[in-house]
């Protein structure tokens, strides 16, 4: 039954995808550089939120250190490009792999902790990292931060405008999203979900919790690292003001709002929150108040997240339909 409905959806989805692609190509030509920057930042946050999806949505581990990892990625890029003078691609790779490694090692230490003890450790990690970001002059430029990080460039192509950067980021986002799909279908992805749903059963099926969780943390680190690299290239200025505990909580809010069941949830959550931030601007003094209350209400109305709620509705609809047809047959 569902199979049939899904197959019905297929062409629709295809059309939607095509529209999305064409749309996204023309966006830069129709929007202001302000909106474009908002979109760029939003897509970068999307990468970070995906990292939360891998860790929380797939592997069931909740971390408050994602913004910290994002920062690590950014500062790696800044240092590799400015102090060592390497080209963008190498810096990008360094950020991605470096942050992944960083996360993997920490994961190996932290994931000896079960349940929410890991979450506590991650809060600690975040605090430690933000302390370093603010005060480690040699690497992070202290509170003043690092300015004039070079633009993103490959060979002759230099992404020095908002729109060119837009395409770079969107390409990375698309690639990463596809990789997510692969991960979801892979044995590794399944072992993540096995741990999420029942760690002991997972062990009895030959899944090594410590290693698997650490890998999950490493992957989320890689995502944050990539996001950080892009952020450094995009804004050209890094300071402790960006990589805060609040930012980490924002990522959690985004994924929870969108729904932890699929990357689509990450997309929806990120865009709703990021754009909400900008939409409520006209409220001036009141914007944060409304924003906060908005988060509460959304959470109360959709505790499973928008995707989760949507899925439930869809299934109910399917069941209803099935029931009806069954009755028809029985008559």
């Amino acid at each position, binding site marked *: 039954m569902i199979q049939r409905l899904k197959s019905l959806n297929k062409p629709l989805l295809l059309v939607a995808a095509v529209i999305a692609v064409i749309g996204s190509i023309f966006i830069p030509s129709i929007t*202001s*550089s*302000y*909106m474009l*920057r*908002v979109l760029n*930042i939003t897509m970068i946050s999307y990468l970070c939120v995906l990292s939360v999806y891998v860790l929380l949505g797939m592997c069931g581990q909740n971390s408050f250190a994602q913004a910290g990892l994002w920062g690590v990625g950014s500062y790696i890029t800044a240092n590799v490009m400015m102090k060592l003078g390497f080209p963008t691609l190498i810096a990008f790779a360094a950020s991605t792999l470096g942050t992944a490694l960083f996360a993997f090692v920490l994961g190996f230490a932290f994931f000896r902790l079960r349940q929410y003890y890991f979450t506590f450790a991650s809060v600690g990690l975040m605090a430690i990292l933000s*302390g370093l970001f*603010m*005060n480690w002059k040699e690497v992070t430029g*202290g*509170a*003043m*931060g690092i*300015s004039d990080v070079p633009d993103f460039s490959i060979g002759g192509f230099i992404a020095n405008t*908002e729109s060119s950067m837009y395409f770079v980021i969107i390409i990375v986002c698309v690639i990463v999203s596809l990789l997510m799909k692969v991960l979801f279908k892979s044995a590794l992805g399944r072992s993540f979900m096995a741990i999420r749903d029942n760690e002991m059963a997972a062990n009895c099926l030959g899944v090594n919790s410590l290693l698997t969780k650490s890998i999950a943390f490493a992957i989320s680190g890689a995502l944050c690292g990539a996001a950080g690299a892009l952020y450094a290239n995009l*804004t*050209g*200025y*890094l*300071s402790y*003001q*960006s990589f*805060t505990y609040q*930012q980490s909580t924002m990522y959690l809010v985004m994924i929870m709002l969108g729904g932890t069941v699929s990357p689509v949830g990450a997309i929806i959550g990120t865009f709703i929150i990021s754009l909400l931030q*900008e939409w409520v*601007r*006209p*409220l*001036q*003094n*009141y*914007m*944060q*108040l*409304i924003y906060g*209350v*908005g988060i*509460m*209400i959304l959470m*109360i*109305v959709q505790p499973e997240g928008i995707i989760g709620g949507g899925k439930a509705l869809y299934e109910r609809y399917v069941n209803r339909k099935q029931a009806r047809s069954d009755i028809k047959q029985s008559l």
Partner: protein
Amino acid sequence: MKKVKRILATALSIAMLLSASACASVDAKSTSTSTSAAAATEPAASAADTTKTASASGPIKIGLTTVLTGDRSLEGEYASNAAKIVQDEVNSSGGVLGRNIEIVIEDALGTDVGAVNAYRKLAADKDIVAIVGSDSSNDNIAISSSVQEAKILTTGQGSSPKLMEIANSNPWLFQLRASDQTLCAALVKYAVEEKGLKTFAIVHDTETASADQARLFTEALATYGITPSVVVPFTSGTKDFSSHIAQIQNADVDGIFAACFHTEAAILLQQLRALDIELPVFGSNAFGDPVTIGLAGDASNNVYSVTAWVPNTTNPKGAAFSAKYTELYGDACAKSAAQIYDHISLICEAIKIAGTTDRQAVRDAMATIDNYQGAITTYDCTTNGDCGRGGLIVQVIDQVPTIVKELYSEKAK
């Protein structure tokens, strides 16, 4: 007016917290009501609507990014109040080029992304002639590349030398403030030459501006062959200074140089005096600020501070503004407010000189302004950085900042 607004705000927030418990239908309602309330109680809210189309007769728009909400919102309260005053003042005196001015405020949120988004949103509005950046070197540095891109006259409120460099290399960005370099040097000079002190401790917040000031204190002391006996950094939000004070005591010094923001300054002074440490404190601008004095009370006495502004200033323009501010809002007028007043007046001046609202023309006009008398000090915008001339060294006596020395500095080159 203010009371009403606050009570209304409380009522709203409670109403909405309650509504959060109810279902989504309540959501829409409560949000909409609060929106309208916001618009009603917050004139600037309507001003933020950037969808109006340009028209020669319509008001001249000037952008202002400041931190209205979040952790650094103190700045925003002063800024938006001051913006209202200057807007009314200009408009009641016939406006600029015969047109009213309208100040469009955007919230910089106290983060880099927030600052940039706010700035870009303003810059994207073709009617906006010039933009005042927020009161933080970080924010101003964060937006500097966007300034290059947007090609619109932008005035930075930050005072760090780093910002000065950036401004000098960026034709569109003006730092309308004396760079700390000159001010800190002056305070050191005063402490060493006129107070005849020999050994010092430096205690400072690791936050951008304060860390910078601490560095400048050290550099200035070096010119007298003095190295600080001890440098004690702390992070913003520190509540208990006992370990910091202990280090200062151990060093036993003649005087303390201090650089940080209001709350930390007040806590530091209180705890110093509570331990009967009566050493003279030479502080950054926050130490002479009414907010700090109000919090620290008697503990703030015999504190020296180098600042550009005191509410009881002798400068007639400043005095008038200060009086008006206090009359309208009850609180003493702080530097952040006076700064906005000067920035906007300067921009209006530039527009007058340009005789048009063309962005390029206004920017060029700005660069011609030399010793313009503002509420805080005189301004020399012939080069982009370090435009605010002069400053004050004040001593707090009976909780009143009293000017002990007026400075007029040459431009730092």
